[in-house]
């Protein structure tokens, strides 16, 4: 497969991707380019294909057609979820998913960047540096006092944060964050937006969200997805004034 027209700054290049479920096109010739260090917000009505797009990028689903290129020329459609994670792509699920019967610390221990093989896991010991990093991230996601509690005891919003924390210690080049503000209070939503903004630059970030206040707070380029393809792209203000977007959101 030849890769055409990638600019050198691109970290993620999704080109002409389609994916059908029993004839229903969840993704329809979708294209998206994300630059290194860029943050992109993705909005779109329910069922627009936002989660499916993430599934395709992270190897959970194979596209029917189209290419998904990471970094210089890594064809992501050839790898499975674990390999893609180790290539440097982290993902937060729409429904917060943490390991409920492990402590917060242990959740982060599993996620922290490093070896992933069976035998290394058997003889693994955290370095002081890694322990410090985990504690630092626990501070960052505002959960330091819950360090040794089971993750199952957290509230919905706190689980979201723990999962974001797991992404942070995993230290991926590209973060895909699916609806991080769901179930959060306004204050928590604001903090989350700040957190994601603060890591942008060092990492590239794709955020899917419904909450317009949250998107506004992210203050970044927005792509609007509709019926599996990109409807519009640009600053939030411009996108919001786009007639087709208004049509899609307000119904015809």
């Amino acid at each position, binding site marked *: 497969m030849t890769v055409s027209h990638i600019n050198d700054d691109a970290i993620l290049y999704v080109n002409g991707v389609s994916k059908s479920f029993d004839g229903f096109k969840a993704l329809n010739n979708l294209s998206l380019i994300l630059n290194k260090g860029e943050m992109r917000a993705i909005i779109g009505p329910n069922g627009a294909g936002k989660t499916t797009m993430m599934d395709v990028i992270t190897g959970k689903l194979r596209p029917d057609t189209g290419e998904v290129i990471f970094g210089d020329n890594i064809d992501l459609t050839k790898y499975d979820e674990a390999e893609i994670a180790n290539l440097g792509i982290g993902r937060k*699920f729409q429904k917060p998913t*943490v390991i*409920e*019967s492990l402590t917060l610390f*242990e959740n982060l221990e599993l996620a922290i960047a490093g070896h992933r*093989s069976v035998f290394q896991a058997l*003889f693994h010991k955290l370095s002081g540096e890694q322990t410090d990093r985990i504690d630092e991230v626990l501070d960052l996601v505002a959960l330091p006092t819950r360090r040794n509690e*089971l993750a*199952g005891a957290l509230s919905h919003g706190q689980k979201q944060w723990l999962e974001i924390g797991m992404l942070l210690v995993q230290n991926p080049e590209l973060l895909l964050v699916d609806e991080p503000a769901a179930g959060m209070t306004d204050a928590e939503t604001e903090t989350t937006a700040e957190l994601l903004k603060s890591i942008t630059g060092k990492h590239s970030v794709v955020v899917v969200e419904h909450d317009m206040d949250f998107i506004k707070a992210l203050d970044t380029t927005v792509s609007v997805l509709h019926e599996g393809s990109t409807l519009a792209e640009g600053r939030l203000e411009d996108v919001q004034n786009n007639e087709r977007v208004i049509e899609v959101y307000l119904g015809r």
Partner: protein
Amino acid sequence: MTNTAFNPRSLLASDVGGRRLLMVLLAIAIFVPILNLAVPESSVFHVSTYTVSLVGKYLCLALLALAVDLIWGYCGILSLGHGAFFALGGYAMGMYLMRQIGDRGVYGNPELPDFMVFLNWQELPWYWSGFESFGFAMLMVLLVPGILAFIFGLLAFRSRVTGVYFSIISQALTYALLLAFFRNDMGFGGNNGLTDFKDILGFSLQSDATRATLFSLTAIALLLSYLLCRWIVDTKLGRVLIAIRDAESRTRFTGYKVEYFKVFVFVLSAMIAGVAGALYVPQVGIINPGEFSPLNSIEIVVWVAIGGRGTLYGAVLGALLVNYAKTYFTGAMPEVWLFMLGGLFVISTIYLPKGVVGVFQKFKSKVAVEPDDPSIQSKEAAS
């Protein structure tokens, strides 16, 4: 934080149930042979050879339950075919014991076991060679279940067969082996299996001393396997297993090749089951295809559920309790036993999700706050 060294003392620091269990195992490994061999039969402290063999048998089944809890309790793999690995280990031991009979069989053939003479076979099939050596046979006790588990596990886990689908194909595996071992031309004695053993390493299997020694070895095998399993679930590998059990896709997207972790623990568990089978056969004196029966494999899971899944010592306790009850009730009221077992399972799933050990924990921890989870042990160890 993490136990990387195999240090029993630190391993059991927070595993109270395990500590008690191991002390009991050590005590019976030492004292039961003494009470059986050295204390006269007239004394109230004498332990009969019948009891020694019976409890020895229970301990083998407890080892089997431990193997099942390792994969089910910690990694969420519900194998309903683990009896197959137990039986294969048993057959490997049985083949060695058959070769030990030599020319003392009914037909007096120095090379061939009686059933082969009966079938008019002229020579030993190739796959029986080597089993005259104890070392080789013991290697096979580990390798045959291990290799089968490796192939089966790799195929199943790589195609992402999980949950009830995995349970069903594991039942199919043991059922297929049941049918195969029933066939006379397989060369494993058909439906009679392997029996009429005479001695092991030159020691008569009928002698009290041999039986007492086998008993102690079983208790020690259970003790060491317990420590091995406890060590594994307390390492980071154990926490990856729990992560797979709780949130398999999260574990994948965090970069762990879930199928390799599953294969590893499945193979280890099959090998432990094989050892249990190998210890079982000389103590009961027979191995036949009935051990492959799908029902046997389901029973193991019931022991673990009743004892308390995901605690290791709960599995051991469950196997001992249920099998003791089975011995009692199949003697007293044989027709009700299966209903009782089913009833126990239903009651324990509905009312005692953490099994018998969960009840103990509840009694003890009216003060301490109890995390609502079966795998609480690994947490205590980690914090």
